[in-house]
């Protein structure tokens, strides 16, 4: 590393307001200096992905395929939501099913209360279901986030079991193990799944867009700071409690929407499906697999793992064997990709660029690609030791 050059004595970073640049920009979030070509490449890829996603059900109209695609999109959304809180803040939450199920039961209850007929109209309730899940997240988050990270994980799991029990016991609201019925839409079998596909796509777009927006904002910066050194962040003035809770609630809102779409798709909802332990772990796994703390990581993770899971579901009929295969799949992913796919490739990119920049002079070309570029990968060679030091 080169030693820092002697700074000029004309610099006046300190006291007087006149030192502020006349073209002061609004407080930036993640670095806004970006090479035009890098950003353009991002938008092109995102645009292309969007086009493919929109055209998908029209090309592959087989309901079985659309169904798998729909589930994949729901997991893209749920995993992105999970990552937006857990990946960014470093607080691993393993009870997201609480919000998934809350959204599901909200939809069921309201749809029945208002005697809604099946159809596109019911989808309008999905955002409301998300908001409801967000409301639920406020007390749950408030209680859970007062603890240290280790305890936090377990508390989220405990909350999961509590909600599952509540689903069984609060028969007035949930009908207990008898479950609840949702309105059945009058669509033809051939196109039935397509409606849900687009609904899931909508939720997924919202999830990814939100994830991206947070990442670029000062709010996201504070989350990342909390992840690296929470006490220090607090010492610098970050309102850590508010920031964590807000992220937690946002994450819950999206997860709730996923639950609502899911329930509507199934047509009925029961406690073990609304509140499913494997859901909690699956979305975390996808986040880890794709890359924690990135925007595209959970997306990639879901796009790869969910179809795989669905495929296994179909191929393997024996319950025991299915479980064994899931478990082995999880173990393989964790064993061989603890960082996730995205950070590994981004890290290589960054090392290349850093080397080039050092040779090229002051801040020559350091393109920053907020979406693909990772400011906070799971690990860099030095960060393992740094993590120890900073504690």
């Amino acid at each position, binding site marked *: 590393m080169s030693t820092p050059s002697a700074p000029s004595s004309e610099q006046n970073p300190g006291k007087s307001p006149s030192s502020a640049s006349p073209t002061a920009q609004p407080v930036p979030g993640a670095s806004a200096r970006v090479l035009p070509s890098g950003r353009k490449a991002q938008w092109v890829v995102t645009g292309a992905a969007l086009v493919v996603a929109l055209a998908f059900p029209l090309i592959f109209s087989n309901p079985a395929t659309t169904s798998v695609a729909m589930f994949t999109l729901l997991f893209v959304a749920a995993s992105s939501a999970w990552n937006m809180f857990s990946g960014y803040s*470093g607080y*691993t939450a*393993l009870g997201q099913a609480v919000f998934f199920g809350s959204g599901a039961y909200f939809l069921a209850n309201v749809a029945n209360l208002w005697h809604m007929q099946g159809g596109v109209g019911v989808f309008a309730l999905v955002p409301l279901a998300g908001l409801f899940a967000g409301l639920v997240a406020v007390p749950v988050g408030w*209680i859970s986030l*007062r*603890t*240290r*990270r*280790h*305890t936090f*994980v*377990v*508390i989220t*799991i*405990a909350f999961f*079991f*509590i909600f599952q*029990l*509540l689903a069984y*016991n609060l028969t007035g609201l949930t009908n207990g193990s008898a479950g609840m019925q949702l309105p059945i839409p009058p669509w033809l079998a051939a196109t039935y799944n397509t409606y849900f596909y687009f609904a899931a796509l909508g939720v997924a777009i919202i999830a990814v867009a939100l994830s991206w927006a947070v990442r670029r904002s000062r709010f996201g910066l504070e989350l990342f700071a909390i992840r690296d050194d929470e006490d220090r962040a607090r010492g610098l003035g970050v309102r850590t409690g508010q920031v964590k809770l807000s992220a937690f609630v946002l994450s819950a809102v999206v997860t709730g929407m996923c639950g609502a779409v899911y329930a509507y798709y199934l047509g009925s909802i029961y406690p073990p499906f609304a509140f499913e*332990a*494997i859901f909690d*772990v699956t979305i*975390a*796994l996808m986040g*880890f697999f794709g890359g*924690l703390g990135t925007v595209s990581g959970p997306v990639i993770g879901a796009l790869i793992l969910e179809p795989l899971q669905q495929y296994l579901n179909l191929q393997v009929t*024996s*319950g*025991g*064997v*299915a*479980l*064994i*295969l*899931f*478990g*082995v799949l*999880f*173990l393989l992913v*964790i*064993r061989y990709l*603890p960082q996730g796919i995205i950070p590994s490739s981004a890290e290589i990119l960054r090392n290349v660029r850093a080397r080039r920049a050092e040779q090229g002079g002051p801040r020559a070309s350091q393109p920053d690609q907020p979406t693909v570029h990772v400011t906070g990968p*799971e*690990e860099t060679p030095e*960060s*393992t030791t740094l*993590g*120890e030091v900073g504690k």
Partner: protein
Amino acid sequence: MSTQIAKAIVDGILTGGVYALMAAGLTLIFGVMEIINIAQGILVVLGAYLSYVLQVHLGIDPFIGLFFTIPIMFLLGVGIEWVFIRRLRPQNRTALSILVTFAVAIVIEGLLTLFFSADLRTLNAWYIDESVHVFGFYLPYIYLFGFGLAVVLLGALYLFLYRTRTGFSIRASVQNRTGAELIGIDINRVSAITFGIGVGVTAAGGMVFGATNSFNPNSGYDLISRLLVIVVLGGLGSVGGALIAAVAAIVIEDVTAVVWSPVWASTMFFGVLILVLLIRPNGLFGQQAARAQ
């Protein structure tokens, strides 16, 4: 009514003792290794199945069978630690350990389903069917024996932790992992042994569980949820805390079943956790306990 409450309290204490044994293993594992063994629940079930197999196919009494099942489970624990846990990188260890042990739990559950199907099983012995008449109600002998077993094993654990060199190493590691390494403690060996102990006690817990409940591979979820609550309630890393939490929580649950309704008893069990966390966010004997060991 008061007889029922008395019975509930006694039941709670006796059952709580057994849960305390299983929770002790879990919390010790966390204390030493900072990982959370989600597989503890299904391992209890595995212990139950092992006892079941020994009894049904070899006619061995469940208590005698412990001489076989405990070492087997101990070795299994060491094996799991060595294969899966040791490789985990320091960053995000705790979260990763949850995913890994959950995956291991799923595999075990799958294997059990394959071999035993989802049929409910239970253990049989004279002390399970017969009861002793005390304080105006009937208490199956198994509850007393199970509690006695828990006391014996916890006592043995205590002696091990406080009177042996390895036990000392374990306690030192709980207090300060890096410091322990610096004074020459082989953290790998300590971790393996701790994990082995943590799993070994589930053999005993599993036997009693299998004797007092009917079980199938799906029973693991309910168990791990309770164990997690107990461990957090007592404070992660605190064996004493786990003991008190286990007995307290289960007594409250059993009394709630009698006083209010069985339906809400389980919810109350978790509710206690929430209530305590509101006052003491890190459990009853949270961080301090890790030192006091």
